[in-house]
């Protein structure tokens, strides 16, 4: 294990592994993300990509391996602590707060750690009011960035699918992350919507300089946006490289097109 920490390594996983019963969902996956990178995580269905996200955010505990954020282990930390440390995410099956408005969804990201004391909550002194004004302003700014300001007062559950995906991104940004995990942001989108999304993510990335790890199936989106791509197959890292390399890699092509039955066990040979 390379113990030398380069200053711009934001996230590193070492041999990250998780078993569900007899099935090894993620096998010794080692990823390194550098500051400001926009990295893709691709692979056929069932490859374990979302599981990697779940491991990083500690929605599930790894069976083995290490996860380092800025060189410090985040294993075993509660998901909300991990968020406060700088990792935010979107979800494969959108998880917005359905009965809250778009505005309220984004605002939640800003105050998930309340910015004033509980006593001040009961008696809202000018100090707390000022904080709330600031929060309001910032939430509206974020909605503006994802072009959702007109929909601010609409219930999240009544928004069209594409807008919901954008809203999730805005909410994730609200937590002021250093690392943004996007889980299939383009899922279910047609070509036009994908193009808009690519533009949006590119704008956000350029402006905010978030380190971003993106799971995606739309190859066009991945190739357009990502500087570096990791390929996962059946839980293991197949390869990694720049888009051009990945596109032409026969292993990758086989992984996607191959119809072989592979049974994963806890002891892969």
């Amino acid at each position: 294990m390379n113990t030398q920490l380069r200053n711009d390594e934001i996230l590193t996983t070492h041999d990250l592994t998780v078993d569900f019963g007899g099935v090894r969902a993620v096998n010794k996956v080692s990823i390194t993300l550098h500051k400001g990178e926009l990295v893709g995580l691709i692979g056929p269905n069932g490859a374990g990509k979302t599981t990697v996200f779940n491991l990083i955010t500690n929605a599930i505990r790894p069976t083995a391996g290490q996860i380092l954020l800025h060189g410090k282990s985040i294993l075993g930390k509660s998901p909300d602590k991990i968020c406060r440390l700088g990792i935010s995410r979107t979800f494969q099956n959108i998880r917005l707060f359905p009965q809250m408005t778009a505005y309220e969804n984004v605002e939640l990201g800003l105050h998930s750690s309340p910015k004033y004391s509980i006593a001040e909550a009961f008696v809202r002194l000018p100090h707390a009011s000022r904080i709330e004004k600031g929060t309001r302003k910032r939430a509206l700014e974020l909605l503006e960035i994802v072009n959702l300001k007109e929909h601010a007062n609409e219930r999240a559950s009544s928004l069209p699918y594409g807008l919901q995906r954008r809203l999730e991104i805005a909410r994730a940004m609200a937590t002021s992350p250093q690392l943004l995990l996007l889980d299939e942001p383009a899922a279910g989108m047609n070509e036009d919507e994908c193009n808009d999304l690519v533009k949006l993510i590119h704008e956000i990335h350029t402006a905010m300089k978030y380190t971003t790890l993106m799971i995606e199936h739309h190859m066009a989106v991945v190739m357009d946006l990502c500087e570096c791509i990791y390929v996962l197959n059946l839980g293991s890292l197949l390869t990694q490289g720049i888009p051009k390399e990945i596109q032409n890699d026969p292993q990758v092509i086989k992984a996607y097109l191959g119809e072989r039955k592979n049974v994963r066990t806890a002891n892969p040979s």
Partner: protein
Amino acid sequence: MELFLQQLISGISIGAIYSLLAVGYALVYSVYNFTNWAFDAFMAFGAFMAFTAISSLFLPFWAAMIISIVLTILLSVGTEKLAYSTLRRRKAPRLFMMISAMGVNLAIVNLINKAFGGTFRKFPIEDVQPIFIGNISIGRMDLIAGLISFGVLGLLWLFLYRTKWGLGIRASAIDILSASLMGINNDAVAMLIFTTTGVLSSVAGVFYGIKYAVYPMMGIVTIKAMIASIVGGLGSLPAAIVGSMILGILETMVSGYISSSYRDLFSFLFLILILLFFPNGLMGKSGEEKL
């Protein structure tokens, strides 16, 4: 020593009754992810039906038992169809399902109260001589309750693990959506599960009524079963049985050695202690949500 064995046997017998309830609870929880508060009512209903069959219709015990089981099954399945199925299909949040279940419970328990009155009734079977082994007396009904309870659980095990329908239920417990995609009929599974619940709760109700008394609020004992299920490890049927036996024996010990009025208090404290030190329950498996 004799007191100890006496209490042990009594504890096993009550543990057996708790097992029936705990398994019923765990079954519904593992498939539908909510607490079926109406279980409380089903148990009381089963007991009262058997009681009425014997005391008003003068039927023999076994006939009363069967009538009770059949009627409780009808009640249980009816509840599913009326109160739960719509919410289930709508994928309503757990809170709503629990409110609906609590509604059913309130309605039925209070209906029983209105119809029969709140007096504690003695179950109308003749006092039977206990069996003596040495100086220890084993209540004959305790023995029968234990045997029948374990018999029912054994049949259930056979059903779940050796039949096609049981496989369907177990698959649904893992993931309802996938199970239905595999061709398993969700509604049929619901029927089966609630039929099973009906059987378990009526048998438990009758034997509990025999051991203690029959009264409208008797179903409150299902909370012990829920506690037992949690203690064992929520979602697992064998764990529910283990938890029930442990709880039944421990609380009978407390009742015998300390005081019977503190028995229920003990059960509750036991729950808290277990949750503090074994957040997964004693044998629990992790049930993490799919993201």
